[in-house]
C-alpha cells in the first residue's frame, strides 16, 4: 500500500512537472480521438438519418400486377406490410389511373390514398393544401399544367366525367413536380371507385426505410408469397443511396486513418523528445536500484494517465462534434453510441502504445554509467 502511494506520487509529480508537454499530448489525443470518435458516431447514426433523408425523394418500392394480371385486387395490399422490416414503411398508397373528361377533354385521374401520398411523394410542391383524409370524396388535387390549362385556382369546383357519370370536386391543392404529375388530377381512391364503379389498383407505391439487400429481399418475398403481385425496388433510388453511403463510409475510413496516423506522429514526436530528455532520470533510477520493469511501469502508467485524460476529453469532444455535424448536416441530434466509449479509450491507448514503443525501447537500453558520467 505504502509502496503504491510512492509509485503514484512519482507518477503524479512527473505529470505535473511536465504539464505543458502533457497538455500538448492530451490535446493531440483529444483532437485525434475526438474527430475519429465523432465521425464514427455520426457514421453509426448516419445510415438511419440518410435513409430518412432519402425517403423525401419518394417511393423506392413499386408493386405491380404479376404475369398476365392487369389489376391489383385491393385485398392483396394488406398482405404487403408483413414482408417489409417492422416499422420501416414511411408511406404506402395504391394508385389507379383512369382517363376522365374535364370540360370535354381527356385528363388522367389518379385515385390514391391521399393521406399516404404526402408520405409516398413528399417531394411534391403543393400550392394550397394536401388532402389528409382517405375518406374525403369532395376534394381533389390538380397538377400544375392542368391548373394552368383550365385556369384552375384553389377552391375552384371541377366537374369530372367518366362515360357520362359525373362528379363535382373542389380543388384543395395544386401539385408541381416537373413530371407526369403536372398533367394529372389526384383524388382519393374512394372517389374514383364511385366514378368508375369498380375497385382495383394499377400499382402500389411504397416509401420504405429498408434499403439495399434488405429491400431486394422484401421485393422477392412479396413476389413469392403474395400471388398475383410483382415487386421491384426502384433501382436508381436504391443504388444511388447505397453508393452515397459507401462513398461516405470510405471517406470516414480515410479521414479516420489519416487522423489516427497524424495523432500517432504528433504524440510520438512529443513522447520521443520527452522520454529522451529523461534518459538521465532513468539512468539515475536504475543506478539507485530501480529495475527496468519498475522504470518502464512508471513511464507506461504516466502515458496511460495521459491517454485516459485524452480519451475522456476526446469522448466529450466526439459527442459535441457529432452533435454539431448532426445539426449542420441533418438538422437533428445524433444519438451518442456507447460503443464509441471503449473504442475511443482503446484508440487513445493504442496511440500511446505506438507512440511509446520506440522511445521506450531506447530508454530501456540506457546505461546509467554512460548517462550519469561526470564532465
Amino acid at each position, binding site marked *: 500500500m505504502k509502496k503504491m502511494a*510512492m509509485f503514484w506520487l512519482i507518477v503524479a509529480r512527473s505529470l505535473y512537472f511536465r504539464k505543458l508537454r502533457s497538455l500538448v499530448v492530451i490535446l493531440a489525443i483529444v483532437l485525434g480521438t475526438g474527430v475519429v470518435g465523432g465521425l464514427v458516431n455520426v457514421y453509426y447514426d448516419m445510415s438511419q438519418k440518410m435513409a430518412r433523408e432519402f425517403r423525401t425523394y419518394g417511393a423506392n418500392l413499386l408493386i405491380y400486377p404479376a404475369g398476365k394480371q392487369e389489376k391489383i385486387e385491393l385485398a392483396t395490399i394488406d398482405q404487403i406490410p408483413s414482408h417489409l422490416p417492422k416499422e420501416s414503411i414511411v408511406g404506402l398508397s395504391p394508385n389507379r389511373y383512369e382517363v376522365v373528361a374535364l370540360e370535354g377533354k381527356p385528363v388522367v385521374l389518379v385515385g390514391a390514398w391521399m393521406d399516404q401520398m404526402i408520405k409516398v411523394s413528399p417531394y411534391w410542391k403543393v400550392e394550397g393544401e394536401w388532402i389528409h383524409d382517405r375518406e374525403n370524396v369532395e376534394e381533389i388535387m390538380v397538377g400544375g399544367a392542368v391548373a394552368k390549362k383550365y385556369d384552375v385556382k384553389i377552391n375552384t369546383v371541377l366537374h369530372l366525367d367518366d362515360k357520362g357519370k359525373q362528379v363535382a370536386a373542389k380543388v384543395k391543392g395544386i401539385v408541381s413536380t416537373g413530371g407526369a404529375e403536372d398533367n394529372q388530377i389526384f383524388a382519393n381512391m374512394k372517389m374514383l371507385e364511385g366514378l368508375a364503379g369498380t375497385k382495383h389498383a394499377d400499382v402500389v407505391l411504397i416509401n420504405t426505410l429498408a434499403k439495399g439487400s434488405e429491400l431486394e429481399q422484401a421485393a422477392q418475398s412479396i413476389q413469392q408469397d403474395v400471388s398475383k403481385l410483382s415487386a421491384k425496388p426502384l433501382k436508381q433510388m436504391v443504388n444511388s443511396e447505397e453508393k452515397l453511403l459507401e462513398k461516405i463510409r470510405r471517406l470516414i475510413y480515410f479521414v479516420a486513418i489519416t487522423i489516427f496516423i497524424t495523432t500517432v506522429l504528433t504524440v510520438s514526436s512529443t513522447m520521443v523528445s520527452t522520454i529522451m530528455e529523461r534518459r538521465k*532520470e532513468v539512468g539515475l533510477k536504475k543506478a*539507485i*536500484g530501480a529495475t527496468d520493469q519498475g522504470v518502464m511501469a512508471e513511464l507506461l502508467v504516466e502515458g496511460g494517465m495521459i491517454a485516459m485524460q485524452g480519451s475522456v476529453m476526446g469522448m466529450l469532444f466526439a459527442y459535441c462534434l457529432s452533435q454539431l455535424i448532426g445539426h449542420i448536416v441533418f438538422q437533428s441530434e445524433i444519438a451518442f453510441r456507447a460503443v464509441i466509449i471503449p473504442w475511443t479509450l482503446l484508440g487513445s491507448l493504442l496511440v500511446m502504445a505506438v507512440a511509446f514503443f520506440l522511445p521506450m525501447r531506447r530508454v530501456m537500453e540506457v546505461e546509467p*554509467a554512460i548517462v*550519469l558520467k*561526470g564532465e
Partner: protein
Amino acid sequence: MSILEMKQVTKKYGNLHVLEQISFDIEEGEWIAIMGPSGSGKSTLMNIIGCLDKPTSGSVKIKGRESASLNKKQLTELRRETIGLVFQQFHLIPHLTALENVMIAQYYHSIHDEKEAIAALERVGLGERIHHLPAQLSGGEQQRVCIARALINYPAIILADEPTGNLDEANEKIVMKLFAELHQEGHTIIMVTHDREVAQCAGRCIKLEYGNIMEIEQLYSPHK
C-alpha cells in the same frame, strides 16, 4: 575484513585496454581516493566497483560476493544493497522535493520511511529544506541531498565521483566535512577526485595512469 577485493581486473573495449590487471583490497571503514588524469581508467574503475559495469576478466568481490559473474538484474540488486552513489552533478530528480529524492532511494530499495529520510536530511544539515525542489537549492545543498540519498539505505560503500567537482570553495568544505564525519562514523568511502587537497583527506590514494595502478599512497592509518 576486506569489503572490496579486486584481483587482476582487466577491462577492454575492443582492442582498447582501459584497465589492466588491477588488484587491490579495501578494508571496511577505509577512505580511499582514486586519482589519475583523464583517460586513466578512473571512471571505468568506479563503474566496476559501483556494479554499473563488469570487468572483461578478473575478480571483484564486494562484501564477499563476486560481482564479475552477475547478470544485469543481480548487479542492480547488489548495487542497491551495498553501494551508495554520490555524483559530481548531483543527479537529483527535478520534480521531486529533497525529501522525495531521498525517499525514492528507499522506495527502490525496499519501502520508504519518511521519518528516516527527514533524519538523513537533518544529518546533512538540510532539515529546513526538505520540501524544496532541487532548483530551489544551491549546488552545495543539492550535493548534500545526494549524500543523504546515498546514505539512506545504509550501504557498505559510499562511492563518490568527483563530489566537489561542481562546488565552490565554501560548499566544498561543507561537503568534505560531511564525508569526514561519515568516515569517523565508520563508513567506507571510495572517492574519485582530481583535487589533490580533497584526496589528502583519504587514508589511501590509488593513482591510476593508462589503466594501471602507478602507486598506492598511504596517507594515514585507515582507522585513525
